[in-house]
C-alpha cells in the first residue's frame, strides 16, 4: 500500500539521520527579554564557526547539539541588542540569556523578530507573521486594533466583508480556518457580528498564520492555522498599560509573583458603543444594550530548572438587549494548562490540557410569551507535544492529542398562557484524535526539508440516533446507538512536506504539499458570520472535508535584506464541501443533515509580495490573482461556479513612515474584486407574490471594493516610567460608498418598477485613541 510505503520511508529517513548524532554536546536554555522576562519566540542562535544554529520555540526555549570545540555563539532578536557568548564546549550546558531591547530601534517598526533573511533560509512557506508593533501603528476602524484585520492585508488572506474580522485563506471558507489562542480553538472569533475580533491586541504576544501547509503538528481545518500566543506577564516588575478609545477601553496589568520565577498578566477590554444609543429618538432603541467585553489572563511559574507551568484563559462575551423584549448574549471561553518539561537537554515536552467553549443564549419575551434558546459547543483536549533537538541539522517533533467534543445544537423553552414546551435537539459527542511526527531536516546548507505525517481520527459516539433520508428528505430508517457506542469512525493520513532549495543568500525556491482533513463543519444561515452559526460533527451523511494543496514559491531579498519579495503559486483541491438545498432551514432543525448537499471545490492563484523591512519608510504591497470554484450535482447541474469568496484581484498597499522619532504616519489601501453573488435575471408571480428567477449560482459580482485608511501616532515624551501615545485614525479616508449588501426593492413612486438598492455601512470614520503604559 502506498501509505505504508510512505511511513516506511519516513522511519528510514529518521533512522539514518540520527545515526550521525554522536560525540556531541548540547547547549540549551531560554532566551528572554531583559525588560519584562517574556520568552522571545523565534530568536536566533547562531554558531559562527559552524555557520549554523537554531531558533527558539514558542516558549523561548532552544537546544542545539554540536561537536566538542570552541565556539562563539550569537544570540539575536531584532529590536534587541545582539549578545555573543564564547564557550569551550566540553560537556552539555544550560545557558539562559536575557536580551536587552535596542534603544535606538525602539520606535522603529519591527517587522519580525527573526533573522533578516529568515524568509530565504527557512523550510517554511505560505506563512504570514505580523509583529504586534506593526499592528499598533496601522490605522483601523474605530481605532480598535485587531490582528485579524491586519492579517487581511497580506496576500492570500481576504476580508470576509466591510469591516469584518472574518477571513478567507486561499479560497477556503471562513470555517476552514483553525484559530487557536494558546492552543485552545476559538470557535467564533467575532464580536459584534464580525466587526471586531476576540483578540485584544494588548494581550497578544505573537501570531503566525499558515496558509494551508502547516507542519504535521497542526490539523483539523482545511485552509489555514492561525496560532496566537498570549503574553506571559512581566516577571521583573509591575507593569500597567492601557488605552482609551472612541468605542472601547483597555487595561492590562502584569507583575511578577516571584521575581524571575513566576508572573501573571490580566488584560481586559470593554466596548461602550451602546452609549450612543441614548441619543436615539426611539425609546426602544434607547433602552437597548449592545456591547462586548474580553478578559485574558495568564500566569506562569518556573517550577524547577526543567519544568515550567503556564495557565491561561480567555473569557469574552457579547451582550445584546433590545428593550426588554429580547436578550441575546454569546461568547467564547478557553482555558489552557501547559506544562513544559525538559528530558535531558534535547527532548522538550509540552503537555497541555485545553478547554474551549462557545455558546449563545437568546431570551425573548412578548407579554405572556417567553422563549429561551441555547446552543453551543464544548471541548476538552489533552495534548502531548515532544520536540527532539537532535543536532543543528535535525529537529524532530512528535505527539498527539485527543479532543472530546460536545455539540449542543439547541435547546428551546417556550411558554405562554397556553403552552409550556421544552424541546431539546439531542446533543452529539465525538472524539477527535491525532498522532503526528515531523522532521525538520537541513540536508545541506542549500537544501532544507520539513516533512511529516499526521494521522487524524474522528469517532462519533453515542447516545445518538442516526437517520437515513431518501431523496425527498424523508426519514426512511433510524438506528439508535447506546451511550459511548461507536456511531461512526473516520481516519485520514495527512502527509506534509516543505522543501527549500537555497540558491544563494538572496534567492530560494520552495515547494510544499499538504493534505488536511476537517471533521467539524460550520453551518451558517447568513452570508456574514453570526453568533447563531452552528458547528456540527461529521456523521454518516457528512463526510470529513479533505484538501490537498501544492504550492511553489520563489523568494528573493534585495539590498542587504532591506527588501523582501516573493511569488507563490498554489493549487488546492477540496473534497466533501458542503452547501445547502434551496430553502434549507438550519436553525433548530434536528434533521439539518437532510438539508445539505455535498460537492467539491478547487482554488488556485498566484500571490505577489514585496516588503520593505527597515528604514524610515516600511511597508508592503501584496497582490493576489486567484480563482475559487465549487461544484455540486444539485446546483446548476454540477457546473463549476465561483464560490462566494472568489476574488479575482486583491491588492493591499501598506506604508508606515517615521517622520520623527515621535511621529509616525501610516496608510493602507485595499482593493478587491466584489464577491460572487446570485442576482435575479427574471421574475414571475405566484399568488401575487413576485418570485425572482435565478439563472446561475454566483453569476454576478458585487461592485469592486476599495478603501484607504490613514493613521497618525504621536508618542509623548517619556516621563520617568510613564509612556503614552495618541493615535488618530481615519477609516475610509475618501469616503467611498462600498457595497455592504445589494437588494432589489420596488420603486417608491412606481411599484411596478424594481430598483437595485445598495447599502453602504461606513463613510469616513475618524477615531482617537490614547494609549499608555508604565
Amino acid at each position, binding site marked *: 500500500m502506498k501509505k505504508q510505503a510512505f511511513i516506511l520511508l519516513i522511519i528510514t529517513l529518521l533512522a539514518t539521520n540520527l545515526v550521525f548524532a554522536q560525540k556531541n554536546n548540547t547547549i540549551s536554555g531560554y532566551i528572554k527579554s531583559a525588560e519584562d522576562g517574556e520568552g522571545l519566540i523565534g530568536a536566533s542562535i547562531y554558531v559562527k564557526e559552524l555557520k549554523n544554529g537554531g531558533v527558539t520555540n514558542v516558549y523561548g526555549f532552544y537546544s542545539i547539539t554540536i561537536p566538542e570545540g570552541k565556539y562563539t555563539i550569537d544570540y539575536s532578536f531584532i529590536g534587541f541588542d545582539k549578545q555573543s557568548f564564547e564557550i569551550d564546549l566540553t560537556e552539555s550546558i544550560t545557558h539562559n540569556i536575557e536580551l536587552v531591547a535596542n534603544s535606538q530601534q525602539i520606535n522603529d517598526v519591527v517587522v519580525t523578530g527573526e533573522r533578516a533573511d529568515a524568509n530565504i533560509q527557512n523550510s517554511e512557506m505560505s506563512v504570514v507573521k505580523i509583529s504586534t508593533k506593526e499592528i499598533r501603528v496601522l490605522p483601523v476602524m474605530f481605532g480598535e486594533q485587531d490582528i485579524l484585520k491586519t492579517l487581511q492585508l497580506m496576500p492570500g488572506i481576504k476580508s470576509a466583508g466591510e469591516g469584518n474580522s472574518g477571513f478567507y485563506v486561499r479560497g477556503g471558507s471562513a470555517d476552514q480556518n483553525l484559530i487557536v489562542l494558546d492552543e485552545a480553538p476559538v470557535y467564533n472569533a467575532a464580536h*459584534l*457580528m464580525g*466587526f471586531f475580533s476576540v483578540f485584544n491586541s494588548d494581550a497578544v504576544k505573537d501570531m503566525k498564520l499558515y496558509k494551508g501547509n502547516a507542519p504535521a503538528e497542526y490539523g483539523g481545518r482545511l485552509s489555514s492555522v492561525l496560532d496566537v500566543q498570549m503574553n506571559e506577564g512581566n516577571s521583573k516588575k509591575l507593569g500597567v498599560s492601557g488605552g482609551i478609545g472612541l468605542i472601547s477601553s483597555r487595561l492590562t496589568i502584569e507583575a511578577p509573583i516571584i521575581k524571575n520565577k513566576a508572573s501573571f498578566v490580566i488584560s481586559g477590554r470593554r466596548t461602550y458603543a*451602546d452609549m*450612543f444609543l441614548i441619543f436615539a429618538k426611539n*425609546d426602544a*432603541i434607547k433602552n437597548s444594550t449592545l456591547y462586548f467585553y474580553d478578559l485574558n489572563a495568564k500566569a506562569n511559574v518556573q517550577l524547577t530548572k526543567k519544568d515550567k507551568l503556564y495557565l491561561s484563559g480567555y473569557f469574552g462575551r457579547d451582550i*445584546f438587549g433590545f428593550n426588554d*423584549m429580547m436578550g441575546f448574549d454569546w461568547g467564547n471561553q478557553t482555558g489552557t494548562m501547559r506544562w513544559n518539561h525538559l528530558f535531558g537537554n534535547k527532548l522538550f515536552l509540552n503537555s497541555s490540557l485545553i478547554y474551549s467553549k462557545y455558546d449563545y443564549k437568546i431570551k*425573548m419575551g*412578548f*407579554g*405572556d410569551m417567553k422563549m429561551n434558546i441555547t446552543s453551543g459547543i464544548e471541548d476538552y483536549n489533552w495534548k502531548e507535544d515532544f520536540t527532539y533537538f537532535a543536532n543543528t541539522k535535525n529537529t524532530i517533533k512528535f505527539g498527539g492529542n485527543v479532543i472530546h467534543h460536545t455539540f449542543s445544537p439547541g435547546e428551546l423553552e417556550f411558554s*405562554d*398562557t*397556553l*403552552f*409550556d*414546551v421544552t424541546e431539546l435537539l439531542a446533543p452529539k459527542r465525538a472524539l477527535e484524535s491525532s498522532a503526528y511526527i515531523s522532521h525538520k531536516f537541513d540536508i545541506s546548507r542549500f537544501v532544507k526539508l520539513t516533512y511529516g505525517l499526521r494521522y487524524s481520527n474522528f469517532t462519533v459516539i453515542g447516545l445518538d440516533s442516526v437517520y437515513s433520508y431518501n431523496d*425527498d428528505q424523508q426519514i426512511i430508517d433510524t438506528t439508535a446507538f447506546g451511550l459511548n457506542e461507536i456511531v461512526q469512525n473516520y481516519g485520514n493520513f495527512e502527509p506534509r512536506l516543505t522543501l527549500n532549495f537555497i540558491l544563494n543568500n538572496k534567492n530560494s525556491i520552495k515547494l510544499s504539499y499538504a493534505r488536511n482533513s476537517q471533521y467539524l463543519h460550520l453551518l*451558517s*444561515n*447568513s452570508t456574514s458570520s*453570526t453568533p*447563531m452559526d452552528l458547528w456540527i460533527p461529521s456523521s454518516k451523511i457528512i463526510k470529513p472535508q479533505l484538501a490537498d494543496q501544492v504550492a511553489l514559491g520563489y523568494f528573493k531579498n534585495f539590498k542587504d535584506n532591506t527588501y523582501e519579495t516573493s511569488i507563490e503559486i498554489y493549487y488546492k483541491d477540496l473534497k466533501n464541501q458542503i452547501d*445547502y438545498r*434551496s*430553502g*434549507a*432551514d438550519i436553525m433548530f432543525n434536528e434533521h439539518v443533515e437532510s438539508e445539505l448537499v455535498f460537492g467539491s471545490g478547487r482554488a488556485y492563484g498566484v500571490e505577489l509580495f514585496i516588503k520593505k523591512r527597515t528604514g524610515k519608510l516600511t511597508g508592503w504591497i501584496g497582490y493576489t490573482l486567484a480563482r475559487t470554484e465549487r461544484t455540486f450535482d444539485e446546483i446548476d447541474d454540477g457546473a463549476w461556479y465561483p464560490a462566494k469568496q472568489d476574488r479575482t484581484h486583491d491588492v493591499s498597499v501598506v506604508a508606515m513612515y517615521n517622520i520623527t522619532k515621535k511621529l509616525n504616519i501610516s496608510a493602507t489601501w485595499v482593493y478587491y474584486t466584489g464577491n460572487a453573488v*446570485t*442576482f*435575479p*435575471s*427574471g*421574475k*414571475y*408571480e*405566484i*399568488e*401575487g*407574490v413576485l*418570485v*425572482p*428567477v435565478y439563472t446561475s449560482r*454566483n453569476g*454576478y459580482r458585487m461592485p469592486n471594493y476599495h478603501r484607504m485608511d490613514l493613521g497618525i501616532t504621536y508618542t509623548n515624551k517619556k516621563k520617568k516610567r510613564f509612556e503614552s501615545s495618541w493615535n488618530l485614525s481615519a477609516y475610509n479616508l475618501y469616503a467611498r*460608498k462600498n457595497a*455592504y*449588501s445589494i*437588494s*432589489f426593492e420596488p420603486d417608491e413612486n412606481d*411599484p*411596478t418598477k*424594481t430598483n*437595485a*438598492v*445598495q447599502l*453602504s*455601512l461606513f463613510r469616513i470614520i475618524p477615531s482617537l485613541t490614547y494609549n499608555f503604559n508604565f
Partner: protein
Amino acid sequence: MKKAHLIYMALIILFASCQDIIDIDLNEIDPKIVIEGSVVSGENVKVTVSYTTDYYNPTDFPGISGAVVTVSDGEGSSEILKETETVGLYESSEIVCEYGKTYELKVEHEGEEYTATSEMPKEVEEWFPLFTEMEFTFGDSTMTMMRMLCLLPDVQEDTTNYFRLKTYKLHDEQKGNGSFNIFDDTDVIEDEFLGELIMLGIPTDFQLFDSVIVEVISINKKTYDFYNSLTAIAGSSDGGGPPPTSTPANPMTNISNGGFGYFSSYAISIDTLVVFEMPMGENK
C-alpha cells in the same frame, strides 16, 4: 431569522449607514414558461400559463393563450382544459377531484412539453380554532395582536402530513393568497382531554368579533417544499425585505423541462367564524 434582523437593524442605526439606488446590469433572459396549476377537491381544475419577464421590467406577466393543457386523474379519465376569458387561464369542466388520486398535468406550447404530477391529500375532517391575544411592548407603545391557533387531532398514520393555513376577513378579496403559512405534523402535543394534537398557529390582524374565514388546507409534500422554498427565497410571509438567509435559488418545482411554478392538489376544509377570545390561564 427575525432575531438576526433585529441585530442588523441595531447595527445599521448605530453606524450611520446609507442606501443608494445603483445601476446593476442584470442579464436579459429568454422568457420561460410559468405554470400555476391547482386541483382542489370538489372544484374545477385551474391552470394559469404565463411567461417570466426580465427583472427590471414592469410587473406585468403576459398570459399565454393557445397552449394545450391536459389533466388526467391517473385512472383513465383525462380532459383538455378550455381557455377562459382571462388570457392564460385554463379550466376543466368534467374532471372530478377526489382524495387518493394522482393527477397528471401536461402543458404543450410551441413544441415543448411540460409535465407534473400531484397526489390529492386527505381533507382534514375535524379542527378547533382558538384565538389568543398577545401583547407587545415597544418603547412606550403597546401593541396587541390576535394569534390564531388551529388544533387538529393527530390522525396521521406513518407518513407525514402537510398543511397550509389561510385566514382572512370575510370580505377580503385577497383571500389569504400570497402568504404561505405552512406546517407539518411532526410535532405532536399531548392534551389530557383531547389526546394527541397538532397545532397550527399564526399571528393575525383580527379584532375581537371580526367575521373571518379559516381554511385548513391539506397539501402534499411537493407543494409544501415549493411553498417552503418560495418563502425562504422571497421572504414573503415576513413582509418582504432581504432576509439574511442562505444563497438564493429558484423554488423547488415539480414542473418538468425547466418550467417554473407548480402543480398542486389540495383538499380544503373551510369555515366562517367570529373571533372570540378563549379565557386562558385556567387550564395551567
